[in-house]
């Protein structure tokens, strides 16, 4: 089957940022996203929420341009003050036009 290489951007962040991150991903041009609850610990250990908070993992498959735009935005808006990590990987998808 013919596949197309695209970028999978994964963002793991404190759960209170969920709505803001979704809005950012949408406005950067992503066609869709998946959010799941996540557990874990990083260097900040700063979680606030029900009562002591949780994390989310937000995944979106996008073009390299959109991925770059999003990474820049996350670096400026979130990295310094919030517990957030983001990473890119290349994935092979069918129906490539669905994502860009």
């Amino acid at each position: 089957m013919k596949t197309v290489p695209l970028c999978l951007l994964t963002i793991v962040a404190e759960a209170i940022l969920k709505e803001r991150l979704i809005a950012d991903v949408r406005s950067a041009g992503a066609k869709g996203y998946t959010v799941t609850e996540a557990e874990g610990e990083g260097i900040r250990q700063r979680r606030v929420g029900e009562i002591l908070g949780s994390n989310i993992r937000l995944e979106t498959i996008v073009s390299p341009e959109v991925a770059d735009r999003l990474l820049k935005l996350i670096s400026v808006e979130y990295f310094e003050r919030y517990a957030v990590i983001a990473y890119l990987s290349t994935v092979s998808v069918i129906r490539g036009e669905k994502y860009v």
Partner: protein
Amino acid sequence: MFRVLSFAKYPTGVCMLDVLRINLCSPLTLSFALGVFARLVRSELSLPRDLYTALSIYLLFALGLKGGVELSHSSLAAISGPALVTILLGCLTPVSAYLVLRKMGRFSIADSAGIAAHYGSVSAVTFIAAQQFTASVGAPAEGFMPTLLTLLEIPGIQIALAIGAFQMSAAAKANPDGTGQVARPVREIMHELLTSRSMMLLVGGLIIGTAVGESGWKPVQPVFEGLFKGLLTIFLLEMGLAAGNRLGDLKQAGLFLLGFGILMPIVHGTVGAYLGSLAGLSVGGCTVLAAMAASASYIAAPPAVRMTLPEANPTFYLTAALAITFPFNLIAGIPIYYEISKRFCS
């Protein structure tokens, strides 16, 4: 009179030690202690997150509904004085907390404002515990108290966050090397606070309760009143577990915050009891208002502070609100406010 439920009924005129004993031996305090103990001995005990969410929805909705039914019996004249002093308290407590933390504790602007937002807002569980307590000592509070709870929830957070935002922007202007992150619009923050789960359930419950009155309340009473105390006991177990999780951070919080977490509530509680007595509240009403003023929010305030003042260290505000002030109020604070209220009201 509003009595969600009562423990064994005690005659009025019991001495301070008896009052403390009554409070210590209540299922609420003991299940909270069990939660803390479970964390201390590193038990695997934990409550599912969904159960915590479900219980908090139930408690807030029950509180709103019952308060609404009681509100339908109250006159505007009876509630206007207490409402006014509650709003005044909501404006005073964040400012006093901020000044003490900034000037005496030498905390940063963000940390001072972040902690002040918690102490300006109110803890619904402390409110419920105070209501239970006043009922158990035979001095139940006025039925419209949940209305005052909703009035106190928002202004404190807003005022403290506004102080933080103004001070930070002034500091940023003086020192232009800042990162220059754009502050979030006030409209967005207000929308979040006003449409938060606790506001929806409390205000919605109050409106529904007022609309349906006593006759509409009767069929749902077994669920919202009959089960209330048992479910609250489970919730306090979860609170104990959460507070126990934070105990390790006490060292990082430091001695000043420990003293602040105990003394600030006493000061705010005394002012609350005094203003309550001026507004004509009963001893029970003054006690509950004092407990509200003395309490620190740990449901509405933390996400609001985290979003708006991310520079504030959550270890400080969560530890102070959850591991210091909440247990203090639950164990000793509420009986103290009761004694203070008795003096002001006599």
